[in-house]
Protein backbone atom coordinates (compact mmCIF):
# COMPACT_ATOMS: atom_id res chain seq x y z
CA UNK A 1 0.00 0.00 0.00
CA UNK A 2 1.28 3.47 -0.89
CA UNK A 3 2.01 5.45 2.28
CA UNK A 4 0.08 8.64 2.90
CA UNK A 5 3.33 10.49 3.50
CA UNK A 6 6.84 9.38 2.68
CA UNK A 7 9.68 11.74 3.54
CA UNK A 8 13.26 10.91 2.61
CA UNK A 9 16.46 12.71 3.60
CA UNK A 10 14.54 15.96 4.09
CA UNK A 11 16.79 18.86 4.99
CA UNK A 12 15.78 22.46 5.51
CA UNK A 13 18.42 25.05 6.20
CA UNK A 14 17.06 28.57 6.68
CA UNK A 15 18.82 31.61 5.26
CA UNK A 16 20.33 32.41 8.67
CA UNK A 17 21.99 28.98 8.71
CA UNK A 18 19.58 27.31 11.15
CA UNK A 19 19.09 23.65 10.26
CA UNK A 20 15.42 22.98 11.05
CA UNK A 21 15.28 19.52 9.44
CA UNK A 22 18.37 17.35 9.21
CA UNK A 23 18.09 14.52 6.65
CA UNK A 24 14.79 13.50 8.23
CA UNK A 25 13.08 10.26 7.20
CA UNK A 26 9.45 9.58 8.04
CA UNK A 27 6.72 7.30 6.72
CA UNK A 28 3.07 7.65 7.66
CA UNK A 29 0.85 4.80 6.52
CA UNK A 30 -2.43 5.36 4.71
CA UNK A 31 -5.25 5.70 7.24
CA UNK A 32 -3.02 6.34 10.24
CA UNK A 33 -3.69 8.75 13.07
CA UNK A 34 -0.18 10.02 13.54
CA UNK A 35 1.13 12.34 16.21
CA UNK A 36 4.23 14.46 15.93
CA UNK A 37 5.55 15.73 19.24
CA UNK A 38 8.50 17.87 20.08
CA UNK A 39 9.57 21.09 21.79
CA UNK A 40 9.36 24.50 20.16
CA UNK A 41 11.90 24.78 17.36
CA UNK A 42 12.17 21.01 16.94
CA UNK A 43 11.10 21.23 13.29
CA UNK A 44 7.41 20.23 13.46
CA UNK A 45 6.00 23.24 11.63
CA UNK A 46 8.87 23.27 9.14
CA UNK A 47 8.13 19.63 8.34
CA UNK A 48 4.44 20.39 7.87
CA UNK A 49 5.06 23.48 5.78
CA UNK A 50 7.54 21.58 3.64
CA UNK A 51 4.85 19.00 2.94
CA UNK A 52 2.36 21.67 1.89
CA UNK A 53 4.80 23.67 -0.25
CA UNK A 54 5.06 26.60 2.15
CA UNK A 55 8.77 26.22 2.80
CA UNK A 56 11.64 26.13 0.30
CA UNK A 57 13.10 22.69 0.90
CA UNK A 58 16.91 22.52 0.83
CA UNK A 59 17.11 18.86 -0.23
CA UNK A 60 15.26 15.57 0.00
CA UNK A 61 11.93 14.30 -1.21
CA UNK A 62 8.36 14.28 0.05
CA UNK A 63 5.72 12.05 -1.48
CA UNK A 64 2.03 12.33 -0.65
CA UNK A 65 0.20 9.13 -1.61
CA UNK A 66 3.03 8.54 -4.11
CA UNK A 67 2.95 12.06 -5.64
CA UNK A 68 6.08 14.20 -5.35
CA UNK A 69 5.21 17.26 -3.26
CA UNK A 70 8.38 19.33 -3.73
CA UNK A 71 8.64 21.67 -6.71
CA UNK A 72 6.40 23.48 -9.15
CA UNK A 73 5.12 20.99 -11.70
CA UNK A 74 1.92 19.13 -12.47
CA UNK A 75 2.67 16.21 -10.16
CA UNK A 76 3.04 18.50 -7.15
CA UNK A 77 -0.51 19.70 -7.84
CA UNK A 78 -1.73 16.12 -7.40
CA UNK A 79 -0.01 16.02 -4.01
CA UNK A 80 -1.34 19.41 -2.93
CA UNK A 81 -4.90 18.67 -3.99
CA UNK A 82 -5.22 15.83 -1.47
CA UNK A 83 -3.72 17.58 1.56
CA UNK A 84 -5.69 19.74 3.97
CA UNK A 85 -3.81 21.97 6.39
CA UNK A 86 -5.09 23.64 9.54
CA UNK A 87 -2.14 25.86 10.44
CA UNK A 88 -0.95 26.76 13.89
CA UNK A 89 -1.46 30.50 13.35
CA UNK A 90 -4.74 31.97 12.17
CA UNK A 91 -4.40 32.98 8.52
CA UNK A 92 -7.91 33.81 7.37
CA UNK A 93 -8.63 36.10 4.44
CA UNK A 94 -9.79 39.40 5.97
CA UNK A 95 -11.90 40.37 2.94
CA UNK A 96 -14.08 37.26 3.07
CA UNK A 97 -16.97 36.14 5.23
CA UNK A 98 -17.07 32.72 6.88
CA UNK A 99 -19.10 31.30 3.97
CA UNK A 100 -16.89 32.93 1.33
CA UNK A 101 -13.71 31.69 3.04
CA UNK A 102 -14.97 28.15 2.65
CA UNK A 103 -16.41 28.65 -0.83
CA UNK A 104 -13.24 30.19 -2.25
CA UNK A 105 -11.05 27.58 -0.57
CA UNK A 106 -13.14 24.89 -2.27
CA UNK A 107 -12.60 26.73 -5.56
CA UNK A 108 -8.84 26.90 -4.99
CA UNK A 109 -8.94 23.11 -4.66
CA UNK A 110 -10.78 22.66 -7.94
CA UNK A 111 -14.28 22.02 -6.63
CA UNK A 112 -17.18 23.01 -8.91
CA UNK A 113 -19.11 25.99 -7.54
CA UNK A 114 -22.24 24.07 -6.53
CA UNK A 115 -20.26 21.38 -4.75
CA UNK A 116 -18.07 23.94 -2.98
CA UNK A 117 -21.21 25.84 -1.89
CA UNK A 118 -22.87 22.66 -0.61
CA UNK A 119 -19.75 21.63 1.32
CA UNK A 120 -19.34 25.13 2.72
CA UNK A 121 -22.87 25.06 4.14
CA UNK A 122 -22.28 21.55 5.49
CA UNK A 123 -19.06 22.56 7.24
CA UNK A 124 -20.73 25.67 8.65
CA UNK A 125 -23.25 23.39 10.36
CA UNK A 126 -20.70 20.79 11.45
CA UNK A 127 -18.52 23.42 13.10
CA UNK A 128 -21.43 25.40 14.52
CA UNK A 129 -20.67 28.55 12.53
CA UNK A 130 -24.20 29.16 11.22
CA UNK A 131 -24.77 32.32 13.27
CA UNK A 132 -21.57 33.81 11.84
CA UNK A 133 -22.03 32.64 8.25
CA UNK A 134 -21.98 36.14 6.75
CA UNK A 135 -19.53 37.70 9.19
CA UNK A 136 -16.15 38.84 7.89
CA UNK A 137 -13.31 36.82 9.42
CA UNK A 138 -11.58 39.61 11.42
CA UNK A 139 -14.79 39.96 13.48
CA UNK A 140 -14.81 36.35 14.66
CA UNK A 141 -13.75 35.29 18.15
CA UNK A 142 -10.59 33.23 18.62
CA UNK A 143 -12.56 30.00 19.02
CA UNK A 144 -14.64 30.71 15.92
CA UNK A 145 -11.50 31.39 13.90
CA UNK A 146 -10.05 28.08 15.05
CA UNK A 147 -13.24 26.26 14.00
CA UNK A 148 -13.17 27.98 10.62
CA UNK A 149 -9.53 27.01 10.07
CA UNK A 150 -10.43 23.39 10.69
CA UNK A 151 -13.54 23.59 8.49
CA UNK A 152 -11.45 25.12 5.71
CA UNK A 153 -8.79 22.41 5.97
CA UNK A 154 -11.44 19.69 5.63
CA UNK A 155 -13.65 21.36 3.04
CA UNK A 156 -12.17 19.68 -0.04
CA UNK A 157 -12.24 16.27 1.66
CA UNK A 158 -8.47 15.73 1.65
CA UNK A 159 -7.02 12.24 2.08
CA UNK A 160 -4.27 13.59 4.33
CA UNK A 161 -5.26 16.15 6.98
CA UNK A 162 -2.47 18.00 8.75
CA UNK A 163 -3.42 19.66 12.01
CA UNK A 164 -0.70 21.89 13.41
CA UNK A 165 -1.59 22.39 17.07
CA UNK A 166 -5.31 22.68 16.29
CA UNK A 167 -6.39 23.01 19.90
CA UNK A 168 -3.79 25.54 21.02
CA UNK A 169 -5.51 28.34 22.89
CA UNK A 170 -9.04 26.91 22.69
CA UNK A 171 -11.23 26.19 25.69
CA UNK A 172 -11.66 22.67 27.03
CA UNK A 173 -15.19 22.27 25.68
CA UNK A 174 -14.18 23.16 22.14
CA UNK A 175 -11.13 20.94 22.42
CA UNK A 176 -13.30 17.92 23.22
CA UNK A 177 -15.62 18.85 20.39
CA UNK A 178 -12.72 19.04 17.93
CA UNK A 179 -11.39 15.71 19.19
CA UNK A 180 -14.76 14.10 18.49
CA UNK A 181 -14.84 15.49 14.97
CA UNK A 182 -11.25 14.50 14.21
CA UNK A 183 -11.91 10.97 15.50
CA UNK A 184 -14.98 10.63 13.23
CA UNK A 185 -12.90 11.85 10.32
CA UNK A 186 -10.25 9.26 11.00
CA UNK A 187 -12.84 6.50 11.30
CA UNK A 188 -13.91 7.33 7.75
CA UNK A 189 -10.40 6.51 6.54
CA UNK A 190 -8.73 9.93 6.46
CA UNK A 191 -5.06 9.95 7.38
CA UNK A 192 -4.31 12.46 10.10
CA UNK A 193 -1.03 14.07 11.05
CA UNK A 194 -1.37 15.95 14.31
CA UNK A 195 1.19 18.10 16.08
CA UNK A 196 0.44 19.12 19.61
CA UNK A 197 2.05 20.22 22.84
CA UNK A 198 -0.71 18.48 24.82
CA UNK A 199 0.63 14.99 25.54
CA UNK A 200 -2.77 13.79 26.76
CA UNK A 201 -4.20 14.86 23.41
CA UNK A 202 -1.63 12.77 21.53
CA UNK A 203 -2.21 9.83 23.87
CA UNK A 204 -6.00 10.03 23.48
CA UNK A 205 -6.02 10.33 19.70
CA UNK A 206 -2.90 8.97 18.04
CA UNK A 207 -2.15 5.41 16.98
CA UNK A 208 1.47 6.20 16.25
CA UNK A 209 3.66 8.93 17.66
CA UNK A 210 6.96 10.35 16.47
CA UNK A 211 9.11 12.44 18.76
CA UNK A 212 11.12 15.05 16.90
CA UNK A 213 14.06 17.03 18.16
CA UNK A 214 16.78 18.98 16.40
CA UNK A 215 15.22 18.28 13.02
CA UNK A 216 15.43 14.50 13.42
CA UNK A 217 13.04 11.78 14.51
CA UNK A 218 14.16 10.73 18.00
CA UNK A 219 11.63 7.92 18.43
CA UNK A 220 8.64 6.49 16.60
CA UNK A 221 6.17 3.89 17.87
CA UNK A 222 2.67 3.36 19.25
CA UNK A 223 2.02 5.05 22.62
CA UNK A 224 2.31 1.64 24.32
CA UNK A 225 5.45 0.80 22.37
CA UNK A 226 7.06 4.08 23.41
CA UNK A 227 6.20 3.51 27.07
CA UNK A 228 7.67 0.02 26.89
CA UNK A 229 10.81 1.13 25.08
CA UNK A 230 11.55 3.92 27.55
CA UNK A 231 10.36 2.01 30.62
CA UNK A 232 7.94 4.83 31.32
CA UNK A 233 4.49 4.93 32.85
CA UNK A 234 3.20 7.89 30.92
CA UNK A 235 3.78 9.57 27.60
CA UNK A 236 5.01 12.59 29.52
CA UNK A 237 7.79 10.47 31.01
CA UNK A 238 8.62 9.09 27.54
CA UNK A 239 8.79 12.63 26.22
CA UNK A 240 11.19 13.79 28.94
CA UNK A 241 13.44 10.74 28.49
CA UNK A 242 13.44 10.87 24.68
CA UNK A 243 14.11 14.57 24.52
CA UNK A 244 16.91 14.23 27.01
CA UNK A 245 18.46 11.29 25.16
CA UNK A 246 18.99 13.15 21.88
CA UNK A 247 21.62 15.84 21.60
Amino acid sequence: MVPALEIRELTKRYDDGTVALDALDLTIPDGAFFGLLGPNGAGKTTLINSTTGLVRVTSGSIRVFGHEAVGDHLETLAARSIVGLAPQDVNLDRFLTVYESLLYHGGYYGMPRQEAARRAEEMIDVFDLRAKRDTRTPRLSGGMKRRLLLARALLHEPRLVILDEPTAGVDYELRLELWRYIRRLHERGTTILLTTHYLEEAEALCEQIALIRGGRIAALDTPDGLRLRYGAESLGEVYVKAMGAVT
Partner: protein
Amino acid sequence: MSTAELRRLSYVSLFWLAARESLRVGRLWSQTVVAPVVSSLLFVIVFGLSLSGRIRQVSGFEYQVFILPGLVAMGMLTAAYSNNSSSIFQARNDRYIDDILAAPMRAWQVDIGLTIGGVLRALAIGIVTTAIGAPLLGVPIEHPVLLVFTALCAILLFASLGLIVGIYAQTWDHNAFVQNLVIQPLAFLGGVFYSVEILPSPWRELTHVNPLFYIVDAIRYGFLGTSDVAPGLAIAVTAVLAGALFWWSVWLFRSGHKLKP
Protein backbone atom coordinates in the same frame (compact mmCIF):
# COMPACT_ATOMS: atom_id res chain seq x y z
CA MET B 1 -5.39 11.91 -11.57
CA SER B 2 -4.48 12.26 -15.26
CA THR B 3 -2.42 15.13 -16.64
CA ALA B 4 -5.54 16.59 -18.27
CA GLU B 5 -7.43 16.45 -14.97
CA LEU B 6 -4.57 18.13 -13.13
CA ARG B 7 -4.46 20.89 -15.75
CA ARG B 8 -8.21 21.40 -15.42
CA LEU B 9 -7.91 21.46 -11.63
CA SER B 10 -5.22 24.13 -11.79
CA TYR B 11 -7.28 26.32 -14.14
CA VAL B 12 -10.34 26.04 -11.88
CA SER B 13 -8.09 27.09 -9.01
CA LEU B 14 -6.76 30.03 -11.05
CA PHE B 15 -10.32 31.08 -11.92
CA TRP B 16 -11.27 31.22 -8.21
CA LEU B 17 -8.18 33.18 -7.28
CA ALA B 18 -8.98 35.69 -10.03
CA ALA B 19 -12.57 35.80 -8.77
CA ARG B 20 -11.34 36.51 -5.26
CA GLU B 21 -9.16 39.38 -6.46
CA SER B 22 -12.05 40.77 -8.51
CA LEU B 23 -14.34 40.52 -5.49
CA ARG B 24 -11.85 42.56 -3.49
CA VAL B 25 -11.85 45.30 -6.17
CA GLY B 26 -15.65 45.24 -6.35
CA ARG B 27 -16.11 45.32 -2.60
CA LEU B 28 -13.94 48.43 -2.32
CA TRP B 29 -15.32 50.04 -5.52
CA SER B 30 -15.58 53.56 -4.12
CA GLN B 31 -11.87 53.54 -3.31
CA THR B 32 -10.66 51.38 -6.17
CA VAL B 33 -12.57 52.79 -9.14
CA VAL B 34 -14.63 55.89 -8.37
CA ALA B 35 -11.92 57.88 -6.58
CA PRO B 36 -9.28 57.54 -9.35
CA VAL B 37 -11.85 58.41 -12.06
CA VAL B 38 -12.92 61.53 -10.16
CA SER B 39 -9.27 62.41 -9.65
CA SER B 40 -8.52 62.12 -13.41
CA LEU B 41 -11.57 64.20 -14.33
CA LEU B 42 -10.56 66.84 -11.78
CA PHE B 43 -7.19 67.08 -13.53
CA VAL B 44 -9.03 67.64 -16.81
CA ILE B 45 -11.17 70.37 -15.25
CA VAL B 46 -8.43 72.08 -13.26
CA PHE B 47 -5.56 71.88 -15.74
CA GLY B 48 -7.31 71.32 -19.05
CA LEU B 49 -10.21 73.71 -18.92
CA SER B 50 -8.47 76.41 -16.89
CA LEU B 51 -5.23 76.42 -18.89
CA SER B 52 -6.78 75.79 -22.29
CA GLY B 53 -7.47 79.50 -22.65
CA ARG B 54 -3.74 80.25 -22.35
CA ILE B 55 -2.33 77.17 -24.10
CA ARG B 56 -4.03 77.08 -27.47
CA GLN B 57 -2.61 73.96 -29.07
CA VAL B 58 -0.20 71.14 -28.19
CA SER B 59 0.92 68.87 -31.03
CA GLY B 60 -2.03 70.18 -33.02
CA PHE B 61 -4.68 69.47 -30.35
CA GLU B 62 -6.59 71.55 -27.83
CA TYR B 63 -4.80 71.30 -24.46
CA GLN B 64 -7.61 69.43 -22.68
CA VAL B 65 -7.73 66.95 -25.57
CA PHE B 66 -3.96 66.51 -25.44
CA ILE B 67 -3.83 65.70 -21.70
CA LEU B 68 -6.73 63.23 -21.50
CA PRO B 69 -4.79 60.19 -22.88
CA GLY B 70 -1.98 60.81 -20.38
CA LEU B 71 -4.46 61.11 -17.53
CA VAL B 72 -6.16 57.89 -18.59
CA ALA B 73 -2.72 56.21 -18.65
CA MET B 74 -1.71 57.64 -15.28
CA GLY B 75 -5.00 56.58 -13.66
CA MET B 76 -4.73 53.03 -15.01
CA LEU B 77 -1.09 52.50 -14.14
CA THR B 78 -1.36 53.88 -10.64
CA ALA B 79 -4.41 51.71 -9.99
CA ALA B 80 -2.80 48.53 -11.34
CA TYR B 81 0.24 49.11 -9.14
CA SER B 82 -1.51 50.12 -5.94
CA ASN B 83 -4.13 47.37 -6.18
CA ASN B 84 -1.60 44.58 -6.54
CA SER B 85 1.01 45.90 -4.16
CA SER B 86 -1.58 46.30 -1.39
CA SER B 87 -3.36 43.01 -2.10
CA ILE B 88 -0.22 40.88 -1.96
CA PHE B 89 1.27 42.79 0.96
CA GLN B 90 -1.92 42.34 2.99
CA ALA B 91 -1.99 38.64 2.09
CA ARG B 92 1.64 38.26 3.20
CA ASN B 93 1.12 40.29 6.33
CA ASP B 94 -1.89 38.25 7.48
CA ARG B 95 -0.39 35.03 6.02
CA TYR B 96 -3.54 34.14 4.09
CA ILE B 97 -1.24 33.98 1.09
CA ASP B 98 -0.40 30.49 2.48
CA ASP B 99 -3.86 29.21 1.58
CA ILE B 100 -3.14 30.26 -2.01
CA LEU B 101 0.47 29.05 -2.13
CA ALA B 102 -0.59 25.61 -0.81
CA ALA B 103 -3.38 25.30 -3.39
CA PRO B 104 -2.96 23.14 -6.50
CA MET B 105 -1.79 25.92 -8.81
CA ARG B 106 1.43 26.46 -10.70
CA ALA B 107 3.51 29.51 -9.77
CA TRP B 108 2.61 31.34 -12.99
CA GLN B 109 -1.06 30.71 -12.33
CA VAL B 110 -0.82 32.22 -8.85
CA ASP B 111 0.88 35.21 -10.44
CA ILE B 112 -1.84 35.63 -13.08
CA GLY B 113 -4.65 35.11 -10.56
CA LEU B 114 -3.27 37.86 -8.35
CA THR B 115 -2.52 40.10 -11.34
CA ILE B 116 -6.10 40.03 -12.60
CA GLY B 117 -7.46 42.19 -9.77
CA GLY B 118 -5.16 45.05 -10.74
CA VAL B 119 -5.85 44.55 -14.43
CA LEU B 120 -9.63 44.70 -13.94
CA ARG B 121 -9.41 47.74 -11.71
CA ALA B 122 -7.14 49.56 -14.17
CA LEU B 123 -9.38 48.67 -17.11
CA ALA B 124 -12.46 49.88 -15.25
CA ILE B 125 -10.76 53.21 -14.53
CA GLY B 126 -9.47 53.55 -18.11
CA ILE B 127 -12.83 52.71 -19.67
CA VAL B 128 -14.91 54.93 -17.38
CA THR B 129 -12.51 57.89 -17.66
CA THR B 130 -12.46 57.52 -21.45
CA ALA B 131 -16.23 57.03 -21.66
CA ILE B 132 -16.80 60.27 -19.74
CA GLY B 133 -13.84 62.32 -20.92
CA ALA B 134 -13.58 61.47 -24.62
CA PRO B 135 -17.11 62.54 -25.71
CA LEU B 136 -17.05 65.51 -23.34
CA LEU B 137 -13.78 66.88 -24.73
CA GLY B 138 -14.02 65.49 -28.25
CA VAL B 139 -10.99 63.17 -27.90
CA PRO B 140 -10.70 60.80 -30.88
CA ILE B 141 -9.54 57.16 -30.77
CA GLU B 142 -7.44 56.93 -33.91
CA HIS B 143 -5.88 53.48 -33.40
CA PRO B 144 -8.19 51.44 -31.16
CA VAL B 145 -6.39 48.11 -31.58
CA LEU B 146 -2.99 49.60 -30.79
CA LEU B 147 -4.53 51.51 -27.91
CA VAL B 148 -5.98 48.34 -26.37
CA PHE B 149 -2.73 46.42 -26.90
CA THR B 150 -0.58 49.17 -25.41
CA ALA B 151 -2.95 49.72 -22.50
CA LEU B 152 -2.94 45.99 -21.68
CA CYS B 153 0.88 45.86 -21.84
CA ALA B 154 1.17 48.94 -19.62
CA ILE B 155 -1.35 47.58 -17.13
CA LEU B 156 0.44 44.22 -17.02
CA LEU B 157 3.71 46.05 -16.43
CA PHE B 158 2.39 48.00 -13.45
CA ALA B 159 0.31 45.14 -12.07
CA SER B 160 3.48 43.01 -12.08
CA LEU B 161 5.47 45.85 -10.52
CA GLY B 162 2.82 46.02 -7.80
CA LEU B 163 3.25 42.32 -7.05
CA ILE B 164 7.03 42.61 -7.02
CA VAL B 165 7.08 45.60 -4.67
CA GLY B 166 4.36 44.02 -2.50
CA ILE B 167 6.47 40.88 -2.18
CA TYR B 168 9.70 42.71 -1.31
CA ALA B 169 8.05 45.33 0.92
CA GLN B 170 8.59 45.07 4.66
CA THR B 171 6.10 47.80 5.60
CA TRP B 172 3.16 49.65 3.99
CA ASP B 173 5.50 52.62 3.64
CA HIS B 174 7.59 50.76 1.07
CA ASN B 175 4.53 50.33 -1.17
CA ALA B 176 3.60 54.00 -0.78
CA PHE B 177 7.20 55.12 -1.35
CA VAL B 178 7.32 53.56 -4.81
CA GLN B 179 3.92 54.97 -5.73
CA ASN B 180 4.44 58.50 -4.44
CA LEU B 181 8.14 59.01 -5.04
CA VAL B 182 8.80 56.90 -8.13
CA ILE B 183 5.68 56.29 -10.23
CA GLN B 184 3.92 59.64 -9.81
CA PRO B 185 6.97 61.84 -10.44
CA LEU B 186 7.94 59.75 -13.47
CA ALA B 187 4.37 59.98 -14.79
CA PHE B 188 4.24 63.75 -14.33
CA LEU B 189 7.68 64.10 -15.95
CA GLY B 190 6.77 61.62 -18.67
CA GLY B 191 4.69 64.01 -20.72
CA VAL B 192 1.22 63.61 -19.25
CA PHE B 193 0.70 67.41 -19.27
CA TYR B 194 3.06 68.49 -22.05
CA SER B 195 4.81 67.38 -25.18
CA VAL B 196 8.52 66.74 -24.64
CA GLU B 197 9.13 68.60 -27.89
CA ILE B 198 8.64 71.86 -26.03
CA LEU B 199 11.33 71.00 -23.45
CA PRO B 200 14.79 72.53 -23.77
CA SER B 201 17.92 70.39 -23.86
CA PRO B 202 18.98 68.42 -21.74
CA TRP B 203 15.48 67.84 -20.27
CA ARG B 204 14.18 66.62 -23.59
CA GLU B 205 16.95 63.99 -23.83
CA LEU B 206 16.61 63.02 -20.17
CA THR B 207 12.91 62.38 -20.65
CA HIS B 208 13.86 59.60 -23.06
CA VAL B 209 15.28 57.51 -20.20
CA ASN B 210 11.95 57.71 -18.36
CA PRO B 211 9.98 54.53 -19.14
CA LEU B 212 6.70 56.27 -18.30
CA PHE B 213 7.33 58.64 -21.21
CA TYR B 214 7.11 55.77 -23.72
CA ILE B 215 3.97 54.37 -22.12
CA VAL B 216 2.18 57.74 -22.07
CA ASP B 217 3.37 58.42 -25.61
CA ALA B 218 2.17 55.02 -26.90
CA ILE B 219 -1.25 55.46 -25.31
CA ARG B 220 -1.52 59.01 -26.63
CA TYR B 221 -0.72 57.65 -30.10
CA GLY B 222 -3.60 55.18 -29.73
CA PHE B 223 -5.96 58.05 -28.93
CA LEU B 224 -4.72 60.98 -30.98
CA GLY B 225 -2.56 59.34 -33.67
CA THR B 226 0.36 61.56 -32.71
CA SER B 227 3.46 60.84 -30.65
CA ASP B 228 6.77 62.40 -29.63
CA VAL B 229 8.80 59.31 -30.61
CA ALA B 230 8.18 56.66 -33.27
CA PRO B 231 5.04 54.80 -32.11
CA GLY B 232 6.69 51.44 -32.81
CA LEU B 233 9.49 52.30 -30.38
CA ALA B 234 7.08 53.48 -27.66
CA ILE B 235 4.93 50.36 -27.98
CA ALA B 236 7.99 48.07 -28.08
CA VAL B 237 9.49 49.61 -24.93
CA THR B 238 6.14 49.18 -23.15
CA ALA B 239 5.78 45.55 -24.27
CA VAL B 240 9.38 44.59 -23.42
CA LEU B 241 9.16 46.15 -19.95
CA ALA B 242 5.83 44.41 -19.35
CA GLY B 243 7.36 41.06 -20.35
CA ALA B 244 10.42 41.60 -18.13
CA LEU B 245 8.44 42.55 -15.03
CA PHE B 246 5.90 39.78 -15.54
CA TRP B 247 8.78 37.28 -15.78
CA TRP B 248 10.31 38.71 -12.59
CA SER B 249 7.03 38.36 -10.68
CA VAL B 250 6.55 34.77 -11.89
CA TRP B 251 10.12 33.99 -10.78
CA LEU B 252 9.30 35.27 -7.30
CA PHE B 253 6.35 32.89 -7.03
CA ARG B 254 8.28 29.99 -8.55
CA SER B 255 11.32 30.39 -6.31
CA GLY B 256 9.32 31.35 -3.23
CA HIS B 257 11.79 34.19 -2.67
CA LYS B 258 10.41 36.48 0.07
CA LEU B 259 7.18 34.45 0.09
CA LYS B 260 8.37 31.24 1.70
CA PRO B 261 11.05 30.91 4.37
